[in-house]
């Protein structure tokens, strides 16, 4: 790694010689580093018995976040984002999916403060110091969920750069679901634009654009009940690859964990899907509500997805209509 004092200076971090060994303090430092640092690195993802390597290039310049994530195994799939636009390149499928949202800056979102409302759902614990082979001394902080509706984290924060160099995602019982571990990390405040160009021939790809239809348009659906702490944080209607009709998109969050709910009308003659799916640490639960296919997606336990998806109701429904709909479902 780069000499540590240089890292702190490059990131504009205050050189405080005597830190309070508090989990909250370390999370705040980590959040600042995540928001400001520009770096190149490689990390390993271990999940479900598989190990995969990724390269990452991350730059923050004039408030604009650029990031390129490349799978170093197999087909060289990539994800490139610049602020609110995300492009997933799938060379093996000769496909690129563009997700662009206007007027929002969720991708710049900072780490939440684990105080106030958040303290009811998560507990931040200072675990201690631990020396990692690749990075030297780290501060270890645990973010523990206080119920089984959300996952927890254990973070190894480099004491000089304040970057999380390892993170374990775990369920309510402490069982690790996924481990992300940096194997290489180099800070660089002069990463050129060319570093965010995908290493593939873009002319050979089929481009699929996913975008909002209207900022003012919101799906007329709401979850009647959500797990404790979750609130509606965004809603809209957008075009997605696949469905011909617009898809309603609601986002529920407890401040850290987020759940996206997608509502769509099945194609004529199509039996709506139902059940549970999975991709990496994200799960999806699909059910049918009033003839609509409702899918909740998020990096949370399936019970959280199920609780939200099954409680979805047309927002304009009166209590009598809601009861009638419930009777139809039963």
């Amino acid at each position, binding site marked *: 790694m780069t000499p540590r004092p240089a890292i702190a200076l490059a990131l504009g971090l205050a050189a405080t010689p005597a830190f309070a060994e508090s989990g909250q303090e370390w999370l705040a430092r980590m959040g600042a580093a995540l928001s400001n640092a520009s770096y190149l690195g490689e990390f390993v993802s271990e999940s479900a018995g598989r190990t995969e390597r990724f390269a990452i290039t991350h730059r923050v310049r004039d408030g604009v976040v650029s990031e390129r994530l490349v799978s170093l195994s197999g087909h060289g799939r990539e994800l490139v984002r610049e602020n609110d636009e995300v492009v997933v390149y799938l060379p093996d499928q000769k496909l690129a999916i563009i997700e662009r949202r206007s007027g929002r800056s969720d991708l710049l979102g900072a780490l939440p403060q684990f105080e106030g409302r958040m303290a009811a759902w998560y507990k931040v614990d200072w675990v201690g110091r631990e020396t990692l082979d690749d990075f030297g001394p780290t501060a270890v902080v645990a*973010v523990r969920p206080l119920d089984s509706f959300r996952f927890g984290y254990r973070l190894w924060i480099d004491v000089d750069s304040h970057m999380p160099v390892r993170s374990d995602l775990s369920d309510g019982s402490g069982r690790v679901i996924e481990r992300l571990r940096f194997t290489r990390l180099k800070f660089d405040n002069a990463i050129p634009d060319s570093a965010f160009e995908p290493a593939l021939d873009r002319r050979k790809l089929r*481009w699929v*654009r996913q975008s909002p239809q209207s900022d003012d348009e919101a799906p007329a659906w709401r979850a009647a009940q959500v797990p404790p702490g979750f609130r509606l944080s965004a809603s809209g209607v957008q075009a997605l690859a696949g469905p011909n009709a617009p898809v309603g998109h609601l986002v529920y969050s407890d401040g850290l964990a987020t759940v996206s709910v997608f509502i769509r009308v099945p194609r004529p003659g199509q039996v709506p899907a139902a*059940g549970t799916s999975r991709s990496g640490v994200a799960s999806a639960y699909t059910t049918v509500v009033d003839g609509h296919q409702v899918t909740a997606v998020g990096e949370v336990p399936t019970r959280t997805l199920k609780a939200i998806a099954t409680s979805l109701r047309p927002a304009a429904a009166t209590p009598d209509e809601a009861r009638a709909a419930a009777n139809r479902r039963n």
Partner: protein
Amino acid sequence: MTDRIKEQLSAFLDGELPDPESALLLKRLERDDELRGALSRYSLIGAVLRSDGDVPAARQVAARVSAAIAREPARGTRFVRLPGYGAFLRAAAGAAVAAGVALGAVLLVQQIESQDAAAPDAVMAQADLPPVQPVTDDLDPLDGTADIYVTPPAPDAPAGIPPAELANYLVAHYGYASPLARRSVGAGLISDDDPAFVEQLPPAETTDP
């Protein structure tokens, strides 16, 4: 086996056992060979009595088993495996009904945990199954080699959404994931092991970059 269980079996076969009790009975059937044998005998007797030896009534029993399984909350895809009709007729002729070929034998093909799917291997399991065949009326009832698989109603089958559809949702969700989880979600999206992009749905909009 207690009289109470026998009564439950009888009620189940007559379609009169409440759903919650049916669910419990089905769970017990999975692990109790004696109970499966009894179910087989009872159902065979009932089928023969109700249908003069024909098999439609037996199919109704099978459908009832299937429907009851399908109604079970938070259970995975199950398939009810029925023996060939010839086996029934041979059994009706007086052969002992082996528990292994019992009418109610439930072949659990796939089950997805409902309480906590956090375990990476808990979901998205795609079982490599034999072809599913519908029950039809044109099967030769004497053909003892024909296995029949009855699937639960499709809307209750927890097959999940197609991988490509899940991928599209994840791309849309990515921007809302928390800073701590976003990298994991992104890595999952481009993971080579991820089946999410194996199938592709027709795009809503295809355009140049």
